[in-house]
């Protein structure tokens, strides 16, 4: 299938920049956790960077994102600043949520990161509401819900896709199919040959793409965005990918076929895209190295900032429960 849209040179470089940021951030996170400098449940997204990086270049800061516990890549690609991120996952006061949300509930409305949920499937019903608001306000914003392959089996998925379709909402349902839900393989949990097949049941466009191919991903997502902005309703995108570090960082991969994992890691999209950019002349090696160096420098700064920042006062335990109570 030919891609409908192709990112131009600067966009390709921007996609790469976001991929580098995401990859660097994941590696740094695992390092900091492994070193014991920070304690948190960490759901590594390493291997899935292309999906949000190549998709969200087609969004504006005003567009909405509802993501999940495995969603830090989504948020960064949507523009969540590193310092706010790191202070939050370290539980510190200057974190986006004053340390009260943590890695599973990061929120940053300034860049449209509206909800991060720890409940499987629950990003979708809320994204519809944001999309409904756009439709009411006629402001052209789209709402993206990301979720996993496992989440495509839960009731909230079904209700959300149906409502989005009958209401013609500008919601984009972005399924990141990494082949597993926790330790359970796709085939053992999901009856659909492919998640994209389910779109037929909602009379909406559904497409399976290679989520590790920035060009395919860019095109499919941009199509969905244009459709949403044009008032033509929702799209279901199933982006095929793989999580390199299992479900939660530190679990052992006993449930996984080692060969499957090895093959996936050898097909790491990051070096592949990097190489392609240089070979096609879109970017020079030096340019890309500079991007990567900048990521590392920014990470140094963010991590230091976060780990030196204070925790919120204990009275914060009781604030933000209600808006009208001190």
């Amino acid at each position, binding site marked *: 299938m030919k891609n409908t849209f192709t990112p131009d040179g600067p966009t390709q470089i921007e996609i790469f920049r976001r991929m580098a940021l995401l990859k660097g951030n994941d590696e740094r996170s695992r390092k900091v956790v492994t070193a014991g400098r920070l304690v948190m449940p960490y759901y590594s997204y390493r291997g899935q960077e292309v999906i949000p990086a190549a998709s969200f270049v087609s969004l504006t800061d005003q567009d*909405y994102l509802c993501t999940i516990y495995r969603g830090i890549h989504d948020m960064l690609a949507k523009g969540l600043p590193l310092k706010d991120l790191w202070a939050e996952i370290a539980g510190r006061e200057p974190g986006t949520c004053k340390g009260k949300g943590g890695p599973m509930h990061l929120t940053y409305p300034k860049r449209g990161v509206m909800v991060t949920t720890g409940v499987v499937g*629950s990003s979708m019903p809320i994204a519809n509401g944001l999309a409904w608001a756009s439709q009411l306000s006629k402001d052209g914003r789209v709402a993206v819900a990301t979720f996993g392959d496992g989440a495509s089996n839960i009731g*909230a998925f079904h209700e*959300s896709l149906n*409502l989005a379709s009958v209401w013609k909402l500008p919601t984009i349902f972005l399924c990141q199919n990494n082949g597993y839900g926790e330790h359970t393989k796709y085939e053992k949990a999901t009856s659909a040959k492919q998640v994209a097949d389910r779109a037929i049941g909602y009379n909406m466009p559904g497409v399976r793409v290679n989520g590790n191919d920035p060009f395919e991903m860019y095109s499919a997502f941009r199509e969905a965005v244009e459709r949403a902005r044009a008032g033509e309703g929702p799209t279901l995108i199933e982006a095929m990918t793989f999580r390199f570090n299992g479900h939660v960082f530190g679990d052992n991969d006993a449930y996984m076929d080692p060969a499957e994992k090895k093959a996936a890691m050898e097909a790491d999209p990051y070096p592949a895209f990097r190489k392609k950019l240089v070979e096609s002349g879109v970017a020079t090696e030096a340019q890309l190295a500079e991007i990567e160096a900048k990521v590392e420098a920014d990470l140094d700064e963010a991590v230091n900032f976060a780990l030196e920042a204070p925790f919120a006062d204990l009275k914060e335990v009781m604030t933000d429960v209600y808006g009208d109570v001190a």
Partner: protein
Amino acid sequence: MSEQKPAQATILQSLNQAFADAMEEDEKVVMLGEDVADPEGGGVTGATKGLSTRFGEHRCRSTPITEQAIVGAAIGASLAGYKPIAEIMLMNFTTVAMDMIFNHAAKLRYMSGGQTNVPIVIRTMTGAGFGTAGQHSDFLEAWFAHAAGLKVVAPSTAEDAYGLMRAAIDDPDPVIFVENMPIYWTPMPAPKKGHRTPIGKARIAAPGDDITIVTYSGMTHRTLGALEAMKAAGVSAEVIDLRSIQPWDQEAVFNSVEKTGRCMTVHEAVKPFGVGAEIAATVAERFHGKLKAPIERVASPFAPVPFAKPLETAFVPDSQRIAETAIRLVKGK
């Protein structure tokens, strides 16, 4: 003072009026739920009749039967500045949407460190009396009251139905709005346009000296209906209609118990782990050593709601039981 006969309205009419007034005043107020728009009849009981015709189907929108999606859509729209009123037809069906209500609506403000909030109203009907049996009549307000981040209100009068609905729509946080079907159609003094009943403030439904009876929703009327029998027995009860269950008006209850020295609670929900327990525990702690009688809780028995008419009737607390309990507490066995 002039002795004008006050205008009458039912709770149902007053709710409808509250929706219309709020939608008229603020275009951010929107409505969604099963059958709520006029092509679908304006709600199964007509509570939302006329709204879609007047304000457009985009602002009063019928949904599929899909409670998770309904509450989710309300939450999402509220995050973007709207003030949605979502109808979950019956309280038992809130169970289908419980993740959206408890894990999301209630918590997004907190988990985001105050960056976002969820100013939605979830209205839901309930109450035994129509032979709808085990899955259509339960009172679950104690669940919602146990959930930090939610508010819970349950009016018993037309004025408060209006006033609490307006206050709930104004409120910056999610409010569970409990409507009791058996008192939907009773004519009562009509609300004034624009009236607000503050959330968290109780109402003294009847003043008295010997015992404080704390109640809410339909049971307020059954408690008031018990006053005559109490009076005949020489018992003067102060009836407090809580109106709000979370938060509940401790000050009003304390002031009353200070005066009466006795307290009992009345609700239709089953007794164990019900709202009465929180009130009784709080009052007992506060008035340790000062109460003239133990605090009793009148409530439905610990069972699902049965279908058969005599059983259903026996299930719900009635005025006689309320009166007997109050008299026993005041006069001794």
